[in-house]
């Protein structure tokens, strides 16, 4: 492919250099430089290659197709012609042999004419000899009579004989010879060397003689040999059995070669009309041959003509070779043509490409030269005209750019000034002076002014803020200007518009003040721009020139821009200060809140924090908090500042007057004293105190709690003036926070006091309970002890009635003891004194001991007491003794209230808790009583439980104990159908359980 390509710069160089270029191209494309280089290299030659291949392949296909078709038909025609030729030769050979045989037959027939049968044997013999002379191929000639006996025999080889009478009737020649008809015998060989054939003809005469002749077939060989078929081809004759009769190679004939095995021979034998077209077969030597056949009819022989296929097609191949060479020649020519054609097509496109690339690279002076006279030339012309247009646009553009650059350079200076000012604005958000000075300096410089000044409205005057410029010095001495029509600055404010005065001295009548200043400071021309905030003027910016020269519109516009910027800067400062102030206030308030929450018991840190913030935020040189004590006097609780003692004295004395801090309290309002010296309400001692401390203004904020004032926060400053609204709000917040802190501290004190009292009360209660327990037990011991001793007969035998009464005494004594126990338990629980002794316990053991302790009771009442505990219950964690108390209570109750039937105790595990149920067949509990029974001293109505005993505290205690274990106790029951108490106990309980 490379060779077909137009040589590229790379192709001309050495492979090493080529690789270097390829690498550099890769590297360049990697860096993304000259991005058009890579595609150009990539696509170069593609169009040429495409066209060349297209044309070449079209021509090649046409040539090859026509050549192939021509070769095919030539081949077919030649083959048919050769076959025909061969066939004709075969037919010619056949007819020649037939003629030859017919001639012999005719001569023989003539010699056998019956007219000669005159009885003169010699005549016949002469005739025969004449025949032998005329026909050299006939070797023997004989005449047989009707009986087959030999009458005359002449031979070239032997002796003639007359009337030998030899019987030859058995020979086939005699048998087959018909009247007037010839018979051709099979081929035979004499002495095994020469082929012979017998011909017999029956004479048509009365004597019915038969003439028999032996014919030497060597003569057929002559015929056959003379037939020339190409160089290697030959003709041969085969008899009806396939034996070779005649062949140019006589040896084959003498060897009695049978050819019936050859395909073409086999195909022909037996067919009456075998002479169709030639066929391809093989000869004896297995050489492929083209062969044709013709039948020699009278003999039933076949003449074959054959020629080696190679020889036959020699010409054909030559013709094919010729055609192939012509084709090749055509291809070469077409390749050359295609190349020329493709180059002709591609060259102008490439020129266009080159031109377009040059235009792209900016070489607009070059023209694209294409003389093809077609669309490509038109395209090139388009390119050229485009280039010239581009050239014109470029030069036009360059002029414009130059002009614009000049303009830009100028405005850049302005922009730079503006940007610099913005930078100054952003770098000094709190201080406006550097900004204003920067603006004045730039304004003076860029507008070519002698001085630039800035004024802000302050009350009713314009206050001078900044002046800059070569002649700015005198302006700084003018501190304030009145806002009136006498100065152009004042008028600009009043009229809200920019004023431009060409010559101040000329306008002296209009602006007397400005003219006076102008005269004093030497300036003549001036321009002033008002500064606006929210559409209201708040200051001016002004330019002055010390000569009479008007400012241009551009300069005035620039000044207005500077004016806007100044407004922005001032607004920024204001916003910043406001935000900062709000933030400061918030932070201060937050700090105080933090102090409140971190020191609930103590107000001092809160007060300190409040005062520190007051000092900082209000620029105060003193701040304090004074509170009204129970004696109605003010006391200074916290103070930041000097001369504390003196201040405290002043404050204390002013408690009940309506002035001073007392005044603030009784007004329940903020009281501001903007100027201590000038306010007549301020008491003299306070004024004196303030002057000692250098305090010029005061603010008092009342601290109010529950509708009355409990104290005041005061702030003193070393300058005259009011506190701002936001500062007042913050001071109020501080006052509220101070109150909260005081209330917090008081509440905490009260709570601590209360809880101490509660604790003491609880201790007293427990002590009382312990004493009660002791004091009750001692007499009870006597009662129960004596009773038992009486029963035991220590004091003698008892009468039955006495014994009965004694039983009641004992019963009631025990009941009283039970009550004491229960009351103590409940009291302990209430006082939080009952502690559980936690240990592992077994539910199974618990149930068993309960049943063991109560079964005598059940048996005594004739009840069935059953227990069913699931196997494999885990150990629990709790106070076994107290749980036992619970179970005993429930089971004891069940037995107590059940008169007949059964009590069933069951324990299972469900959801990680023990579930112990006690079911009885007692009277049941009314629904409204089912909650009450767990309350202290609540038994189901007295009548039904009368005589059942019990303190009425058992279930209440049981409920508390179970709840202390994190469990619950409940009952399901209906009147008349028994009750079921269910205790649910967590297997393990984290003790102490958090109170619900």
């Amino acid at each position, binding site marked *: 492919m490379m060779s077909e390509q137009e040589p590229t710069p790379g192709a001309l160089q050495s492979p090493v250099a080529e690789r270097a270029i390829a690498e550099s191209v890769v590297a360049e494309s990697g860096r993304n430089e000259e991005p058009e280089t890579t595609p150009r290299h990539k696509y170069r030659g593609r169009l040429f290659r495409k066209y060349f291949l297209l044309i070449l392949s079209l021509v090649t296909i046409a040539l090859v197709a026509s050549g192939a078709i021509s070769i095919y038909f030539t081949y077919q025609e030649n083959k048919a012609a050769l076959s025909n030729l061969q066939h004709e030769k075969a037919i010619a050979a056949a007819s020649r042999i037939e003629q030859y045989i017919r001639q012999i037959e005719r001569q023989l027939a003539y010699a056998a004419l019956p007219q000669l049968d005159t009885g003169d044997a010699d005549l016949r013999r002469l005739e025969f000899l004449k025949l032998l002379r005329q026909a050299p191929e006939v070797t023997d000639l004989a005449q047989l009579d009707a009986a087959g006996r030999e009458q005359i025999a002449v031979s070239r080889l032997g002796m003639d004989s007359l009337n030998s009478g030899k019987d030859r009737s058995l020979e086939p020649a005699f048998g087959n010879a018909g009247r007037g008809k010839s018979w051709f015998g099979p081929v035979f060989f004499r002495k095994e060397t020469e082929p012979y054939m017998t011909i017999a003809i029956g004479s048509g005469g009365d004597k019915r003689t038969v003439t028999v002749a032996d014919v030497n077939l060597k003569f057929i060989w002559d015929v056959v040999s003379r037939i020339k078929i190409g160089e290697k081809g030959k003709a041969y004759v085969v008899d009806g059995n396939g034996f070779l009769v005649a062949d140019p190679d006589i040896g084959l004939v003498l060897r009695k070669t049978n050819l019936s095995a050859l395909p073409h021979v086999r195909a022909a034998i037996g067919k009456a009309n075998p002479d169709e077209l030639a066929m391809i077969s093989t000869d004896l030597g297995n050489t492929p041959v083209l062969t044709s056949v013709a039948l020699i009819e009278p003999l039933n022989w076949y003449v074959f003509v054959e020629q080696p296929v190679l020889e036959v097609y020699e010409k054909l191949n030559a013709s094919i070779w010729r055609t192939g060479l012509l084709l090749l020649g055509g291809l070469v020519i077409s390749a050359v043509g295609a190349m020329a054609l493709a180059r002709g097509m591609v060259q102008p496109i490439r020129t266009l490409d080159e031109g377009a690339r040059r235009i792209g690279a900016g070489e607009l002076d070059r023209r694209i030269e294409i003389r093809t006279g077609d669309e490509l030339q038109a395209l090139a012309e388009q390119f050229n005209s485009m280039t010239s247009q581009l050239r014109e646009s470029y030069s036009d553009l360059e002029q414009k750019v130059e002009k614009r650059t000049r303009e830009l350079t100028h405005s850049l200076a302005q922009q730079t000034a503006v940007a610099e000012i913005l930078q100054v604005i952003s770098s000094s958000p709190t201080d406006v002076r550097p900004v204003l000075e920067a603006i004045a300096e730039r304004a003076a410089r860029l507008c070519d002014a002698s001085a630039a000044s800035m004024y802000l409205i302050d009350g009713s005057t314009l206050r001078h803020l900044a002046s800059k410029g070569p002649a700015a010095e005198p302006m700084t001495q003018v501190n304030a200007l009145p806002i009136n029509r006498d100065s152009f600055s004042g008028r600009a404010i009043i009229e809200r518009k920019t004023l431009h005065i060409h010559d101040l001295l000329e306008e002296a009548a209009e602006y007397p003040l400005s003219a006076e200043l102008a005269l004093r400071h030497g300036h003549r021309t001036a321009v002033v721009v008002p500064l606006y905030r929210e559409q209201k003027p708040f200051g001016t910016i002004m330019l002055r020139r010390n000569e009479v020269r008007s400012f241009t519109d551009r300069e005035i516009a620039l000044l207005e821009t500077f004016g806007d910027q100044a407004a922005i800067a001032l607004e920024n400062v204001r916003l910043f200060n406001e935000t900062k102030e709000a933030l400061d206030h918030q932070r201060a308030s937050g700090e105080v809140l933090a102090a409140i929450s971190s020191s609930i018991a103590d107000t001092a840190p809160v007060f300190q924090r409040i005062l520190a913030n007051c000092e900082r935020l209000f620029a105060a040189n003193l701040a304090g908090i004074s509170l009204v004590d129970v004696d109605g006097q003010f006391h200074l609780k916290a103070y930041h500042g000097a001369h504390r003692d003196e201040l405290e004295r002043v404050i204390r004395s002013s408690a009940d007057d309506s002035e001073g801090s007392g005044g603030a309290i009784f007004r329940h309002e903020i009281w501001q004293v903007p100027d201590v010296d000038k306010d007549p309400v301020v008491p003299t001692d306070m004024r004196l105190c303030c002057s000692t401390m250098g305090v010029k203004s005061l603010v008092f904020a009342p601290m109010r709690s529950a509708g009355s004032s409990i104290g005041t926060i005061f702030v003193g400053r070393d300058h005259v003036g009011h506190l701002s609204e936001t500062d007042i709000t913050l001071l109020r917040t501080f006052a509220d926070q101070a109150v909260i802190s005081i209330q917090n501290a008081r509440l905490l004190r009260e709570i601590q006091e209360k809880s101490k009292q509660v604790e003491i009360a609880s201790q007293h209660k427990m002590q009382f309970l312990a004493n009660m327990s002791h004091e009750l037990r*001692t007499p*009870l011991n006597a009662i129960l002890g004596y009773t038992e*001793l009486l029963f035991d007969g220590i004091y003698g035998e008892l009468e039955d009635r006495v014994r009965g009464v004694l039983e009641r005494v004992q019963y009631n004594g025990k009941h009283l003891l039970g009550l004491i126990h229960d009351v103590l338990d409940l009291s302990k629980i209430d006082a939080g004194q009952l502690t559980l002794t936690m240990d592992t316990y077994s539910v199974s053991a618990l149930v068993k001991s309960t049943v063991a302790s109560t079964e005598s009771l059940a048996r005594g009442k004739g009840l069935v007491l059953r227990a069913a505990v699931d196997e494999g219950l885990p150990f629990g964690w709790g106070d076994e003794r107290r749980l036992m108390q619970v179970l005993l209570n429930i089971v004891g109750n069940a037995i107590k209230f059940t008169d007949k039937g059964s009590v069933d105790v069951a324990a299972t595990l469900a959801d990680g808790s023990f579930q112990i149920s006690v079911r009885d067949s007692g009277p049941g509990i009314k629904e409204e009583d089912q909650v009450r029974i767990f309350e202290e001293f609540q038994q189901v109505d007295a009548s039904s439980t009368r005589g059942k005993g019990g303190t009425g505290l058992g279930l209440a205690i049981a409920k508390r104990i179970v709840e202390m274990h994190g469990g619950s106790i409940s009952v399901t029951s209906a009147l008349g159908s028994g009750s079921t108490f269910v205790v649910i106990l967590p297997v393990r309980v984290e003790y102490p359980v958090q109170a619900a």
Partner: protein
Amino acid sequence: MTSKILVIEDTEDNRRILRDLLTAAGYDVIEAVDGMTGVAIARERRPDLILMDIQLPVIDGYEATRRIKADPTTQNIPIIAVTSYALAGDEAKAREAGCNGYVAKPYSPRLLLQKVREFVG
């Protein structure tokens, strides 16, 4: 030889109950009405068992027990606290003081007698 049991008890009724019970059971009963006297009698009479009330005049039962147990001549005499201090922890306190047994009031005289027999046959 009959065993001697010292009853230190300030309440007349309770002293009598113990006296009647123990005398009927065949023991010699000696009595004291306050702790100090109890200690002195114990030292003097060397009883086989002491039944000690806790709340006693002069010195209480704990102190009396401590003194008896501190005296080598009396320290081997078993002491049963018989007290109305029957709240949780009271038994522990008694045993800490040196008591060998503890019976809370009100007691069953029969059960007390059983307890006594554990110490003196």
